[in-house]
């Protein structure tokens, strides 16, 4: 049973986040503290998990994905209530009567510094539950129900277009200069963040326009999934504004931005510095893989990224460990924190791994691309290794 239940762990984090926000004051930091604390310590202590179990109860696995919608709906309700002024949907009175907790007092005790914690925690939850599960579901392009739920989950981080760009852009251009979501050697996370977001939205829009042309529909039509995605996000902003005024809308937008930043950090370290000859197939070597047990349990095996890109239609429970693939030195939340706080240190930490990749994994054509990337990286150790060799 454990092999199933481990994937429910992420909902524990969502619960801690919602609970902390409802408790108000310093408790609003609970979600962020629990997620970073448990993940960083847990990945170190528990280490790698190479198991590849067979799963019989696939409905159960799928139901754990769809649980995301009610859970995030509840989190949004708590956030909107705490950001507002009245008693939205009578939640405050109900909680007072049934649970004995005074949410009105909790709201009054919450200042800006507390809301910063709430936004960081809720942003992590939007990404871990919303973006990650939205990613899994929108790879199932012929399953209308999965696409519908997946796109709404992505819309929470203003990114329903991810369902277009990721599948038809990123997976095709992976690890080439044409992919906005592949970080270049020497590129700082914050430079990448802006380039990636701008590049992905341009690409999604262009891909959608191409599809509409193929099908003979106009750009300004209801068939346009790119525009519909923005309308979905707009509807969520409007719902927050209606429920909790401008402050509610602002808190939602900041949380969405925090969640999107989490996605881009993951994009950054999943392929940092890797190169591919565009004429050759995508192989496991074109992703930084991780078999950290906790990261994979919480992110539905996303960290088994080498297999995901080599076979994008594989379900999360089918992803294999590929322990021979290039491997990230840290778990997902550890990598994320380093990328945010010590971006330069992280790049230096990855330099020997990249040079090892060039030697052991790269094809001859890729070795040339890697040399060019090293020279252009602006990083002394990469340049020296290239010139010296």
């Amino acid at each position, binding site marked *: 049973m454990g092999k199933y239940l481990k994937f429910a762990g992420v909902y524990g984090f969502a619960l801690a986040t919602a609970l902390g926000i409802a408790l108000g004051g310093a408790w609003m930091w609970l979600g962020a503290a629990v997620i970073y604390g448990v993940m960083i310590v847990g990945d170190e202590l528990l280490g790698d998990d190479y198991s590849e179990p067979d799963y019989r109860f696939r409905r159960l696995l799928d139901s754990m994905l769809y649980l995301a919608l009610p859970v995030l709906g509840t989190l949004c309700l708590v956030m909107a209530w705490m950001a507002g002024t009245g008693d939205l949907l009578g939640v405050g009175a109900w909680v007072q009567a049934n649970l004995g907790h005074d949410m009105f007092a909790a709201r009054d005790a919450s200042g800006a510094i507390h809301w910063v914690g709430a936004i960081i925690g809720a942003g992590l939850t939007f990404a871990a539950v919303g973006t990650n599960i939205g990613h899994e579901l929108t790879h199932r392009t*012929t399953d209308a129900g999965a696409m519908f739920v997946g796109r709404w989950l992505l819309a929470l981080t203003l990114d329903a277009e991810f369902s277009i760009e990721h599948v038809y852009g990123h997976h*095709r251009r992976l690890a080439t200069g044409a992919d906005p979501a592949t970080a270049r050697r020497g590129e700082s996370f914050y430079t990448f963040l802006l380039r990636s977001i701008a590049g992905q939205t341009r690409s999604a829009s262009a891909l959608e326009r191409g599809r509409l042309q193929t099908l003979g529909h106009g750009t300004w039509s209801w068939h346009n999934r790119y525009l519909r995605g923005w309308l979905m996000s707009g509807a969520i902003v409007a719902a927050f504004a209606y429920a909790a005024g401008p402050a509610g809308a602002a808190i939602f937008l900041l949380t969405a931005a925090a969640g999107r930043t989490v996605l881009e950090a993951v994009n950054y370290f999943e392929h940092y510095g890797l190169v591919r000859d565009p004429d050759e197939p995508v192989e496991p070597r074109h992703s930084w893989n991780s078999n950290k047990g906790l990261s994979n349990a919480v992110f539905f095996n996303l960290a088994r990224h080498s297999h995901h890109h080599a076979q994008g239609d594989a379900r999360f429970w089918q992803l294999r460990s590929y322990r021979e693939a290039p491997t990230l030195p840290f778990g997902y939340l550890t990598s994320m924190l380093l990328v945010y706080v010590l971006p330069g240190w992280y790049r230096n930490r990855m330099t020997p791994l990249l040079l090892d990749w060039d030697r052991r994994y790269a094809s001859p054509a890729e070795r040339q691309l890697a040399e060019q990337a090293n020279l252009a990286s602006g990083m002394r150790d990469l340049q020296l290794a290239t010139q010296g060799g």
Partner: protein
Amino acid sequence: MLGKLFGRRPPEQAAVGVEPFGWEFEVEPGQTILQAALARGLPWPSRCRVGSCATCRCRLLEGDVKALTDTSYVLSREQLEQRYILACQSQPRGRVRVHLERARATLRADAPSDPAAEQR
């Protein structure tokens, strides 16, 4: 849902005949044409394998396939009208015949060379 159930149990063994190479191979339930071809070591061209690069495209001459993705992002209108499909996103319903423009000219550069891969 029903379609999915029936799709998994085709009335006859799914199989592919490939023009002009004369390749014939069977496809297991749940497998795509590309997966079956690569499992047999055939030099079928492919890159992304998720239905986004169209490198594995071929033209359906006979029979029917179940398409796993929306090919309108990657194939042109002319190609769709000519019944082009993506091998990596197509599960044959029974026996099908397809036309492949060319086999992979070069194998992965780090793989040992294979004369069968050089034919075009």
